[in-house]
């Protein structure tokens, strides 16, 4: 009888253990050791190459870290296969088609421009090839299960910044510089405008510029003539720099607010003191981001490129970490389909420089918001009311 009891207990224990191991198995799963290729459609040349190269370099840092620390699994090596699109939709589509046909490519990452992301997504879907969008910000880009995005949708961060600016500075007359040919930046500006107008400020001008514009003497004159005490510049990077420079050169001394396009160190190198004191909102910035992952990323980036990473590099880095995390959760020989499902079901990107990056239905949610500005000495500090 006692023997029977003992056997029963042993059997039950074995059963519980088996059950526990069964549940725990995915956490300890590792893909087969070997080399896995990730296709990257980059923007290393073309009109937005300054940001494109940051994304690419961030991705390279992630690859090195993943391979050295075994973050994608024991004996797993990731290799980045890069094709430069030059921000040209036709070249991006061609690159994605080639990645789709190449069965050695397990996953891909792509695109700063939303229009290009939308153009390559169907190719990823039809080839059942996981695609992680690293820069494009249009809503509804993710498509289950193959297309995911590590870029939080724009809006909440600018809204948070606008609320703070409106509360602390109490502007009365506000002028807006808008990107007439970029619906994302236009939507971001409108979100800010709504918040600022709610605080009681009047909109005195909405001046539209185009992405390809280089001469901003006219728009600057137009804006200053309306006598604003706050100017919101919500355009792509080069026009933003051009507008701010033209405003300052013409003697505008009031507050200017803009977006994260001002964050790359190369922008400060180009513009210097002209952009100091101008607040912008983002999730990652060397000198301010101090999580363990952020510090490790900044140090690795500095060691490799002798420069500080910007928010775009952080996004490129995170896209690859996201793929590695999905891969790590698989067992045996991973397929594109299995990897896509694993990534779609991810709720948090474990290795990220933001201090937390939640995911929901393949779409990154807004992480923490930092409101910062460049100082005259070329450092980035948390913004304080002047």
């Amino acid at each position, binding site marked *: 009888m006692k023997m029977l009891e003992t056997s029963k207990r042993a059997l039950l224990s074995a059963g519980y253990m088996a059950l526990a191991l069964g549940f725990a198995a995915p956490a300890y799963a590792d893909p087969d050791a070997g080399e896995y290729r990730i296709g990257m459609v980059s923007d290393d040349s073309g009109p937005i190459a300054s940001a*494109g190269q940051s994304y690419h370099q961030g991705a390279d840092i992630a690859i090195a870290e993943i391979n050295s620390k075994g973050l994608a699994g024991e004996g797993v090596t990731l290799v980045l296969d890069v094709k430069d699109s030059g921000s040209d939709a036709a070249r991006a589509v061609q690159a994605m088609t080639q990645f789709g046909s190449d069965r050695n490519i397990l996953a891909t990452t792509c695109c700063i421009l939303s229009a290009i992301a939308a153009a390559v997504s169907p190719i990823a879907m039809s080839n059942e090839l996981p695609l992680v969008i690293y820069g494009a910000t249009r809503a509804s880009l993710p498509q289950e299960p193959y297309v995911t995005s590590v870029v939080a949708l724009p809006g909440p961060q600018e809204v948070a910044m606008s609320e703070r600016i409106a509360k602390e500075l109490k502007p009365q007359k506000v002028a807006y510089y808008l990107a007439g040919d970029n619906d994302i930046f236009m939507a971001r500006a409108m979100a800010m405008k709504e918040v600022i107008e709610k605080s009681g400020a009047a909109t005195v001008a909405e001046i539209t510029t185009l992405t390809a514009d280089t001469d901003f*003497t*006219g728009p600057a004159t137009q804006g200053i003539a309306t006598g604003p005490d706050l100017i919101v510049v919500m355009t792509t990077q080069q026009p933003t*720099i051009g507008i701010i420079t033209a405003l300052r050169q*013409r003697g505008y001394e009031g507050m200017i607010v803009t977006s994260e396009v001002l964050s790359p160190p190369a922008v400060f190198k*180009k513009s210097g003191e002209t952009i100091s004191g101008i607040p912008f909102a983002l999730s990652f910035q060397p000198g301010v981001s101090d999580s363990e992952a952020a510090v490790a990323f900044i140090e690795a980036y500095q060691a490799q490129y002798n420069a500080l990473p910007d928010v775009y590099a952080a996004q490129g880095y995170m896209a690859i970490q996201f793929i590695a995390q999905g891969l790590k959760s698989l067992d045996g020989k991973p397929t594109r389909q299995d990897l896509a499902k694993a990534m779609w079901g991810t709720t948090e990107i474990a290795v990220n420089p933001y201090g937390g990056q939640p995911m929901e239905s393949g779409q990154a949610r807004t992480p923490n918001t930092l409101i910062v500005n460049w100082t005259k000495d070329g450092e980035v500090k948390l913004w304080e009311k002047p």
Partner: protein
Amino acid sequence: MTLFLEQLVNGISLGSLYALFGIGFGLVFATLGVLNVAHGAYASWAAILGYFSVEYFGVPFPVAVGIGVFGGGIIAIAVDQIGFQPLRGRKTGMLGALITSIAFLIILDSLAGMVTNHQSWAFPSSSYPSGMVDLGIIRVPEMQIIIIVSTLICGVGIYALIQKTRIGAAMRAVGWSDEAAALSGVNPRMVILLTAFLAGATSGLAGVLGGAATSNISHMLGEGLLLKGFAAVVVGGFDDVRGTVIAGILLGICEVFVAQYLSTTYRDGFTYVLLLTFLVARPRGLFGSRDFMRA
């Protein structure tokens, strides 16, 4: 009124850049018979050379302008001698030269992208005249005054060179027929080299001054000037520097006023409509010769 006047000066300054660029563009077309789209790349390269000379060698801005202008001229000569001179011998006509110039535009732009790392740069604000001049009613940036004065000097100088000197007569003769000019004792090769240099140098001047004024030095700088410069030449008349200068300035004024009083959306559309109107209704432009033609 102040706003109107300030925008007027902005327009004249912007248009002066178009004019400066267009002078060289028209010169090459009228004298060498080449619709040279690589002309835009000369402006980009001149601005890049000027920027590098300030950034890495610390030269004063006027010297940087000189380096850019000279560099633009030398690149123009190199392109002409490598790309266009062999075609002249074979009499391939304008189409062959146009295709060659497109190839050079791509090559020069790509190389410029490589040396700038596809980034946009700017002259340090302390390195060039970035202050404002108080004219009483309005304040005008120093760079705008420099651009306007430079365009007037270049316009008058090159007009005088072409119309009042023996060299200019030789240029016009080669533009009409290099064989006939050679029979008259003109050295067509020298005229071609001089014309190419002048065209590249004026384009380079537009590039360096425009790059400083707009804080934008990149491999794509010349692309922005190309269409507007072409429009200035078409509207002003291919073979008349005066027309190019006046048309360029008018184009700049119209662009700024359209953006100020209508909408930025219509600004470039206005340029294209003007271009199309002149091509259809008055192909010789405002000042172009009635009998001007290219072989």
